[in-house]
């Protein structure tokens, strides 16, 4: 990259931001005017004389945004880029004196992804689904995604070897193998996608699991057993982020029951439900869906061990990309347009379908309304987190509009008028008058996701935190406000200075390194020698792929 190695991150000089109204909910600061000081890439109590002074009078200061669930790097993202040249042709991302050029659309190129996140005030993003065998590729792409800090979740929920261990009741070896896999891929968290469903589908057309207690044909174990084992293993190892699960039956009518059962499986242990909007549908399977946001949000409200991100649908073009291969096949059959379906050896599946959400289509309008219901009925913004499951529900570039929908009742009412009436009448959205405050927005887009991820130095502005800061002009039009921060500071460097990019560097990889018993390697190795296309000794990703990185420690006991 042009300049990212010229100065190490954090080498920028000290800064004092004065007169701005600070929203730092993790430290109980709600709009107080205070000085904010930065030195050596961290927030500090006071900056030395001669520090650069930024006057933020009339502006709103928040920690840098943290995206807990998006798809921005790895083999499936690259396939989606290749599949849609028309998307790129229409949205070039020109270079500047400081930044490189790229292409946009719903699946931007690596450079454009980093810059566009930064241009919204986001400084951390988590790629949510990478098959272990794609880890090397993902790490290289993340290294080329500038400015933001990032990590990825490794797909383990349809792993043949792990399912065998579970079938044979070898729970301790299962836990060791999970830790080995996380270490071998430099991942940040474990990810389960339609656990137990991909493998039957790969073997037989239209085969899937449709119930959490249904034992699959291949291994004779149920999704609940897989989920329970992961919740247990991650709990035992005290990983910073709990299992990140995309439940069974995504998108199917009546799937809220599966979602509730998934959450109940965790008991009082921690669990993160991804894009929960897609899992909150009532109605009979195979029939038209209705909203089941109420029972879902009630359960989440009452159970502090559960976190979730919403996966809001935003109207317009999107790209469905998922490790849930049977789901992609179902969606493909709606329009019979181009799509990709891929198998990833013994580890996962993959499906990609270009998609478009339309206001006048009942199901799409219902999905949009359910997402908003979940946000507006949430009792604890710390645990119901902002996401569009980029690019599945819509691009991350639609976050500012989503924020306006949450903060501006009148705007929401106008938007409701434009969508399918019957769909809205099947929800309580029209009766919800709540408006999010700036502090609540800071929670759902910054403090909440950082806490759910166990990132102690992100999502807040207390001394010692990473100096990831966004300064917005206080604008009554919240969409315009969140679309164009005046300053974005990342690791103490003023990346966006008075609306202009002034820096380019690559950001850090965030990953975990749980301890494991080295003898597990002897258990795993024969399986690779029998079934994999890659030599076992070449499988684990070497440290040279880490570049600038940070190991996030386990949670304290």
């Amino acid at each position, binding site marked *: 990259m042009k300049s990212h190695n010229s100065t190490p991150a954090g080498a920028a000089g000290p800064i004092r931001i004065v007169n701005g109204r600070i929203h730092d909910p993790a430290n109980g600061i709600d709009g107080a005017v205070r000085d904010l000081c930065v030195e050596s890439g961290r927030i500090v109590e006071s900056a030395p004389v001669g520090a650069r002074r930024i006057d933020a009078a009339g502006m709103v200061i928040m920690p840098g945004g943290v995206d807990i669930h998006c798809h921005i790097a790895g083999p499936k993202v690259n396939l989606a880029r290749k599949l849609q040249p*028309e998307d790129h042709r229409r949205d070039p991302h020109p270079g500047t004196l400081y930044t490189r050029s790229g292409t946009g659309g719903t699946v931007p190129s690596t450079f454009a992804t980093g810059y566009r996140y930064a241009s919204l005030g986001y400084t951390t993003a988590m790629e949510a689904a990478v098959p272990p065998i794609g880890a090397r590729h993902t790490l290289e792409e993340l290294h080329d995604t500038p400015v933001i800090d990032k990590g990825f979740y490794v797909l383990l929920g349809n792993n043949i070897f792990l399912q065998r261990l579970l079938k044979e009741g070898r729970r301790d070896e299962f836990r060791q193998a999970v830790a080995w896999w996380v270490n071998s891929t430099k991942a940040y968290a474990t990810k389960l996608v339609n656990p137990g469903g991909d493998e039957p589908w790969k073997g037989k057309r239209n085969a899937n699991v449709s119930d959490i207690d249904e034992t699959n044909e291949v291994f004779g174990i149920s999704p609940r057993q897989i989920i329970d084992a992961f919740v247990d293993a991650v709990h035992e190892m005290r990983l910073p982020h709990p299992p990140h699960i995309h439940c069974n039956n995504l998108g199917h009518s009546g799937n809220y029951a599966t979602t509730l059962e998934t959450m109940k499986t965790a008991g009082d242990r921690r669990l993160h439900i991804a894009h929960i909007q897609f899992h909150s549908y009532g109605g009979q399977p195979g029939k038209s869906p209705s909203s089941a946001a109420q029972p879902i949000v009630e359960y989440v409200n009452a159970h502090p061990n559960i976190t979730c991100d919403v996966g809001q649908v935003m109207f317009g073009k999107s790209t469905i990309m998922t490790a849930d291969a049977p789901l992609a096949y179902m969606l493909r059959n709606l329009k019979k347009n181009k799509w990709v379906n891929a198998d990833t050896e013994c580890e996962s599946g993959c499906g990609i379908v270009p998609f478009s959400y339309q206001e006048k289509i009942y199901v799409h309008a219902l999905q949009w309304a359910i997402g908003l219901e979940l946000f507006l009925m949430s009792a604890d913004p710390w645990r119901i987190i902002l996401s569009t499951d980029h690019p599945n529900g819509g691009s991350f570039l639609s976050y500012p509009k989503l924020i306006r929908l949450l903060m501006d009742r009148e705007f929401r009412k106008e938007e409701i008028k434009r969508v399918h009436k019957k769909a809205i009448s099947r929800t309580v959205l029209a009766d919800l008058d709540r408006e999010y405050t700036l502090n609540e927005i800071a929670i759902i887009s910054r403090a909440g996701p950082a806490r759910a991820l166990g990132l102690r130095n992100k999502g807040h502005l207390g001394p010692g935190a990473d100096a990831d800061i966004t300064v917005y002009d206080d604008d009554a039009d919240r969409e315009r406000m969140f679309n164009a921060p005046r300053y974005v500071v990342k690791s103490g460097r003023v990346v966006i200075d008075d609306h202009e990019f002034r820096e380019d560097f690559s950001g850090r990889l965030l990953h975990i390194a749980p301890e494991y018993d080295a003898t597990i390697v002897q258990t795993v190795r024969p399986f690779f020698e029998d079934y994999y296309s890659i030599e076992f000794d070449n499988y684990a990703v070497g440290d040279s792929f880490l570049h600038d990185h940070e190991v996030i420690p386990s949670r304290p006991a």
Partner: protein
Amino acid sequence: MSLRLQLRTRPEVPVEADALAPDRLQGLKTPEVESLPLIHGNENCVVGDFFAADGECNGELHLEGDLSRIKHLGSGMKSGTLHIHGDAGAHLGVGMSGGQVIVDGNAGDWVGPEMSGGRICVKGNAGHMVGAAYRGSPMGMTGGEIIIGGCARNELGHGMRNGLIAVGGDSGDFTGVNMLAGTIIVLGRLGLRPGASMKRGTIVTLHDSELLPTFSYACCFRPPFLGLYLLHLRQLDLAVADAHISGRYARWCGDSIELNRGEILLYKT
């Protein structure tokens, strides 16, 4: 009075000249025209670096010289006449919605991709991808006419959705591939695999052709619409004989791996 642009030096590498369309130059003075931006390879330059301008555009733009390395001429034009006295480069009349483009010589690849209206007449030959969809797009040309006096190369009318493409000579392989609707008339021979994966639409040739096994023979008849089309093409200087206008055509339906609502008409007698 019309505007004439004379190419002074043939560029070493292609020049992208989106600016050169009659409606965009309407009413501009000569110095203003000469200062419009062009892209030469990876460098920004201006029209005056390559062209000498004379006159003022009243809806008619004449380009002179060997323009085979000048790309994107007439792109997005909505009205007026663009007359190229010589060869034209690739991406001629991209997405145009009205007006007329006349090329006295040959044209490069991508003549009229994704155009929606107007007419392009190329008196010589054209390259690949005439009236096609750009890679990844679901649809090629959606309206208007492209008339090629000579031959055209592969993937003529790829993904075409509406409009007319006529070729005086032969066409290349995959003529009308992925076609959704519209009409392609080739007076010469079709290349390999015409109409592969077509959903609807009509492909006509005045010769026999080897068709894909997914096309099935329907009947032999005198299509009434075809006479009108061929008379229209004769007025546009294509060599259409009376026998073609009144003749019988064999109708083949396809492509059966898709909708099977398309047709290929082969001239019989």
